[in-house]
C-alpha cells in the first residue's frame, strides 16, 4: 500500500516536470496521462465584504415573517404601518441614547482592550479652544463635522491663527455642500429610511453665510473656489447669485468643471420664463461646455433632462428629451435610473397625451442590475409604478417594473419607506382592479403585512372589488387583517365589511363562512361600542341605520339571537345617536327570527321600532306578527295602543282567514 502511494507520488512529480495536468483519479489508479497545460488562474482580489455579499445574495426576503430589523418575537411583530415605524425608530432611539451616554461621559470609557482599536466604539474626540489649529480643522472637515468645523474656523479666526488657502478651500466645499448644516449621521439608518424627504424647490441657501465669508477670505480666488460656491448656490436654489458668479468666471476666464456646469444647467429654468428661452439657455450652456473642451458626464445628461422636466408641458420637450438622450449616449454615457425617471416625467404627464414610453424603457432595462449613480436614481421605481397604474393602466408593465426591482441589488434603489409603500400602493391598486380576485388574494397574502401594509384607500378598494366579484369568503380574512393593520376604527371600511357580510346567503355548504360572518358582525359591534365609550377619541364612529341593519342581518343568519336583541334594544334606546334608521328588510329578518323563536316581546319591539322610524312597512310587519304568533293579551294591548284598533281588527280578520285555511 505504502509502496504504491510512493510510486504514484513519484509519477506525480514526473508529471509536474512535464508540465502536464494531473486528473485527480490518477492518484489512485494509474491511467495514462493526457498532456494538458496547467493554467493557474490569477488571484482575484476580493474586498473584505465580497464573501459576505455572496452569502447575502443567497438569501431572499422572507415574505412570511417580519423584517430582520424587528425583534424576533411574535408579540413584537408589527403589522400596521405605524407600528412598523414606531418599533424600528424606537430601536434606533435606544442606540441613540447609548451613544449620548457614551459621548457625554467619555471619562467612563477609557478602558480600551481592543486591538486594533475600533474608532466607532470610542467616544467622539472633543476639542477645546486650545487645540485650535489648521490640522484639527482639516481633520474635522475630513469627518464631515460641519458645525464643529465652522466653530473651529471661527475660533481660529478669533485667535488670529493663519489658515492656508487649501484648508479654507476644503472647508468651503464642505460648507457649500451642506449649506452649513449638519447632515444626518450615517449610522441612523432607520431615521433616514422613515424620513419623508420632500424635495422643496425654493431658495434655502444661507445668504451671506459662512460659505460666502470663506470665499471672500480666500487670498486668490481660483476656479475651485468659484466652482464650489456656484455648486452650493445652485444646489440650494440661490440661482441669481450663482449666475452672477458664473458671469464673473467668464469675465475672468476661469475654467469651470463639468459638475459645475451640470449644476447650472439643472437650475437654468429659473433664469428664464418662456419654455423656448429656457431651452435656449440650456443649449447655450452646453455649447459653452463643448467650446471650452469640458467633457460631459452622466450628470450633464441628467441635468439637461431635469431642466427639460421644468418645461415638460412644452410641445417640443418630448422630442428634445429623446434627442438629448441620443446625444449623450452617442458620446458614450450610460444612462442611469434617474435618466429614465426624468424621461418618464417629461413623456407621461398627467394632463398630457398617453405615452407608452415606459414599455420601451422596460424592454431596454430588463434583467439589468443598477447601481446608484445619481441622487435621483431612487425615484425611478415609484414613478414607473405610478405611471403603470395611472397613466397607461397596464398590469403587464407593472409586473415588469416589479421584476426589475427584484433583479440583482435593485431593491436598494427603492428609496425610503415612504416611496416603498407608495410603490406597493400603486401595484396593489392596479392588481386589485385588473387581476382575478383569487389570484390577487394570493399576492395579497404573500406581500402583506410584512412587505407592505395596505393603507385605508387600498383596503377600501380591495373590499369593494371583493364584494363586486362576490368573493365573500375573503371578507373574514380581510376584516381580521384590517383590525391588525390598525384600520378597524375606520367607519367607511366597517360599513363596507358589514354590507358585504350582509350579502352572504347562508347555505348548507357554507356553514363555516356563515359562522365567521356572524363573528365578524359581533366583533364589529363590540369594537365600535368600545370605541364609542372612549370619549377622548377625535373621530368618533357613528352608527348608521344601514350598518346596524347589516349587523342584525348577519347576527340573525349566524343564529346569534341574543346579541340581536341587545342590538335592537340599543338601537331603540339610543336612536338619537344613530344616523338614519334600520332599514325595513333588516327589521323583517329580525321579526322573522323572533317569530321563529315565538318571542312576541321582541317582535313587538321590532314593530315599535319600525313605527318610530316611520317606515311604511310598519303595518305590514304588525300584521305579520299578529298573524304568525299567538300574542298574549298584554302584547295585543300594546300593539293596539301603538297602532290603533284598526290593526287589530284587520289582524283578526286575517287571523280568522288563516285559521279558516287551516284544517
Amino acid at each position, binding site marked *: 500500500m505504502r509502496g504504491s502511494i510512493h510510486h504514484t507520488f513519484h509519477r506525480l512529480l514526473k508529471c509536474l516536470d512535464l508540465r502536464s495536468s494531473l486528473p485527480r483519479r490518477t492518484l489512485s489508479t494509474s491511467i495514462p496521462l493526457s498532456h494538458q497545460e496547467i493554467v493557474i488562474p490569477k488571484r482575484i482580489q476580493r474586498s473584505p465584504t465580497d464573501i459576505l455579499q455572496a452569502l447575502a445574495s443567497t438569501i431572499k426576503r422572507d415574505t412570511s415573517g417580519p423584517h430582520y430589523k424587528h425583534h424576533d418575537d411574535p408579540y413584537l411583530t408589527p403589522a400596521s404601518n405605524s407600528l412598523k415605524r414606531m418599533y424600528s425608530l424606537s430601536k434606533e432611539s435606544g442606540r441613540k441614547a447609548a451613544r449620548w451616554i457614551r459621548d457625554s461621559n467619555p471619562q467612563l470609557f477609557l478602558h480600551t482592550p481592543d486591538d486594533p482599536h475600533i474608532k466607532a466604539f470610542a467616544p467622539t474626540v472633543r476639542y477645546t479652544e486650545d487645540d485650535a489649529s489648521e490640522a484639527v480643522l482639516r481633520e474635522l472637515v475630513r469627518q464631515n463635522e460641519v458645525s464643529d468645523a465652522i466653530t473651529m474656523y471661527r475660533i481660529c479666526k478669533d485667535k488670529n491663527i493663519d489658515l492656508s488657502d487649501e484648508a479654507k478651500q476644503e472647508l468651503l466645499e464642505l460648507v457649500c455642500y451642506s449649506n452649513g448644516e449638519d447632515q444626518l449621521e450615517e449610522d441612523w439608518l432607520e431615521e433616514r*429610511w422613515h424620513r419623508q424627504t420632500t424635495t422643496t424647490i425654493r431658495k434655502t441657501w444661507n445668504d451671506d453665510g459662512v460659505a460666502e465669508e470663506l470665499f471672500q477670505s480666500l487670498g486668490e480666488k481660483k476656479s475651485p473656489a468659484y466652482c464650489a460656491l456656484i455648486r452650493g448656490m445652485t444646489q440650494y436654489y440661490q440661482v441669481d447669485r450663482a449666475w452672477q458668479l458664473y458671469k464673473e468666471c467668464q469675465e475672468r476666464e476661469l475654467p469651470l468643471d463639468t459638475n459645475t456646469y451640470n449644476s447650472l444647467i439643472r437650475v437654468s429654468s429659473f433664469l428664464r420664463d418662456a419654455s423656448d428661452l429656457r431651452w435656449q439657455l440650456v443649449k447655450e450652456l452646453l455649447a459653452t461646455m463643448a467650446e471650452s473642451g469640458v*467633457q*460631459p458626464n452622466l450628470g450633464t445628461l441628467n441635468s439637461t433632462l431635469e431642466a427639460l422636466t421644468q418645461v415638460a408641458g412644452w410641445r417640443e420637450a418630448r422630442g428634445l428629451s429623446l434627442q438629448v438622450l441620443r*446625444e449623450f449616449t452617442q458620446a458614450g454615457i450610460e444612462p442611469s435610473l434617474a435618466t429614465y425617471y426624468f424621461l418618464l416625467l417629461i413623456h407621461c404627464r398627467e394632463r398630457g397625451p398617453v405615452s*407608452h*414610453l415606459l414599455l420601451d424603457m422596460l424592454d431596454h432595462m430588463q434583467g439589468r442590475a443598477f447601481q446608484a449613480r445619481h441622487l435621483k436614481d431612487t425615484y425611478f421605481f415609484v414613478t414607473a409604478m405610478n405611471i403603470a397604474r395611472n397613466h397607461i393602466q397596464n398590469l403587464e408593465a407593472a409586473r415588469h417594473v416589479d421584476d426589475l426591482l427584484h433583479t440583482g441589488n435593485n431593491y436598494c434603489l427603492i428609496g425610503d419607506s415612504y416611496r416603498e409603500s407608495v410603490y406597493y400602493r400603486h401595484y396593489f391598486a392596479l392588481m386589485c382592479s385588473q387581476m382575478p380576485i383569487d389570484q390577487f388574494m394570493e399576492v395579497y397574502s404573500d406581500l402583506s403585512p410584512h412587505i407592505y401594509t395596505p393603507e385605508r384607500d387600498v383596503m377600501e378598494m380591495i373590499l369593494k372589488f371583493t364584494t363586486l366579484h362576490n368573493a365573500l369568503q375573503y371578507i373574514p380574512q380581510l376584516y381580521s387583517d384590517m383590525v391588525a393593520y390598525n384600520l378597524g376604527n375606520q367607519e367607511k371600511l366597517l360599513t363596507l365589511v358589514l354590507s358585504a357580510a350582509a350579502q352572504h346567503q347562508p347555505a348548507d355548504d357554507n356553514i363555516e363562512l356563515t359562522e365567521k360572518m356572524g363573528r365578524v358582525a359581533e366583533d364589529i359591534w363590540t369594537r365600535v361600542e368600545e370605541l364609542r365609550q372612549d370619549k377622548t377619541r377625535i373621530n368618533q364612529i357613528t352608527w348608521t341605520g344601514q350598518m346596524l341593519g347589516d349587523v342584525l342581518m348577519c347576527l340573525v343568519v349566524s343564529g346569534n339571537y341574543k346579541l340581536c336583541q341587545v342590538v335592537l334594544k340599543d338601537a331603540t334606546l339610543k336612536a338619537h345617536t344613530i344616523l338614519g334608521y334600520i332599514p325595513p328588510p333588516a327589521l323583517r329578518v329580525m321579526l322573522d327570527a323572533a317569530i321563529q323563536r315565538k318571542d312576541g316581546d321582541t317582535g313587538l319591539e321590532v314593530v315599535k321600532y319600525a313605527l318610530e322610524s316611520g317606515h311604511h312597512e310598519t303595518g305590514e310587519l304588525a300584521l305579520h306578527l299578529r298573524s304568525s304568533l299567538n300574542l298574549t293579551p298584554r302584547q295585543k294591548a300594546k300593539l293596539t295602543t301603538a297602532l290603533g284598533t284598526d290593526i287589530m281588527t284587520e289582524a283578526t280578520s286575517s287571523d280568522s282567514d288563516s285559521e279558516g285555511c287551516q284544517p
Partner: protein
Amino acid sequence: MATTRLSGSSLPVLQRLFSRNGILPIFQRTFCKVPPEDPTQAEEAKTIEQEKLGDSNITADTQVKDSGVKEQIEAQDHKVSSDKQVDNVSPDSSDSSKAEAVQETKKPVPSQEKKLTKREQTQKKLRDLLASLATVDPLSVESTVKLTRPKPRPKKEAKVKKEEELPPPESYIEPELVSATKEVAESLGGDTAATESELLSTLRLHSSDAPPHTQAAASLSELFVGMKIERSPNEGETAPIQHKHFSPEADPRRQPDANARRRRLSRLSPERSIPRTIQRVDLFGAKPLGIFTGKCSKSEDASSILPVWEALHEEELKRSMSHPPDNAFVEMIQWTNQGKLWTFPVDNEFGLESEKKIGFHEHVFLERHLQGWCPPRGPIRHFMELVCTGLSKNPYLTVERKRAHIEWYRNYFAEKEGLLKEIGAIQSSN
C-alpha cells in the same frame, strides 16, 4: 329714411361712446359699410333674399346684401321663390322705436344690375360662412350658435371689418335701433350723447333679457343643419378650412381654445380613455443635438478639482442605497464598512499594522539575544533557553516586549552575579 343716414363726423363720437360697451365692432361694421349719402343702399343692407334653386335637394342660396345683418335671415319658409323678399320679422316688437325701425326695412328698391354683382359677392360670403359653420366641432353645437372665432380684439379693428361673418357680441343691438335711438336723442335736444347712451343702455338691458338675434341665430342653425352646402367653385379652398381646425399650427389664435376644450373633456371623463394601439418609441433612435461630438474620455473624473465635495457626494450616493439590513449578512457588511468587524477572509493579523514590518523569525528565534552574556552551559543557560522557547510561542507579545523580557533577566543575573558565582551557577572565567 333719414334716420339711417349718419354724417361721417358723428361716427367718432359714437365710437367713443360705444367702445366701452364692447359693441363697437358691429356698430362700425354696419355704419362704415353704408355710405351715408345713399339711403337706398342702407335699405338694401337690410334686404334678405332667399332663393331655392334646384329640385328636392335643399340647396340654400341665401343672398345677403350686407352680411353684417346676417342674423336677420329668416328661415321659416324654405319654399320661397327666387327673389322673393322676406319680411324681416323681429321677434321682439314690443319696443315702439324698434318696431318702427323694422317697418322701415320693408321697403326694398333693389336695382337689378347692382344686385347681380352684389349677389355674387354675398354668395361667396355666405358660402364661407356656411363652410365655417360646418367646420364647427359637433360637440360644441348648442342652441346658440357661437362661431368658433374668438372675440375680436380692439387692436384688430381693421381686420374685423373684413370678417363680416363674425358673430355679434352678447349685448347686440340692431343697427336700426341704434340709428333710431340717435334720431330720438336728436329730436329731444339737449345733451344728445347722454340721452342716446341712456336709451341704448336701456335697450341693451332688454336685448340681454331676450336677445332677438339668438333666436334668429338658432333658427339659422336649424336651417343649416342638414342643408347641403353649396361648394365654392374652387374645391381646394374649402378643404384646408376643414383641416384648419384640427391642426394646431394652422391657427395659432385658436390653439388655446382647442387646448381648453381638451382639458375640459379630460376633466369631464373621470377615466381617461387610453388608446389601445401602443405607439412604440425608439429610445435611442432620435437625432442627436450635435453639440458634443466625439467620445468623452473617462479618465477626466479621476482628478476632480473639488475632492471634498466629490467625497461627500459619493457618500450621499452610498447612503441613498443603504437600508436597514435585510439579513445578518447585510448587517455584517455594514459593520465591516464601519470598521466594527474583522474583515473577511479571517486573518489573525487584521489591524496589526505595526507587526507587518516585523518578520516571523524575529518572534521565534530569540536565542541569538542570549549571545554575549549568557553562559554557554549550566543552569542559567538552561533557564534562559526555556524562557526563549516560552516567549517564542507567545503570540500576544511584540518582539520588543520579548526582547525586554530577556533584557530584564540579563540585568537580574548581572545583579546577582556574585551570589551565582558563589553557588557555582556561573563558572568563573578563570
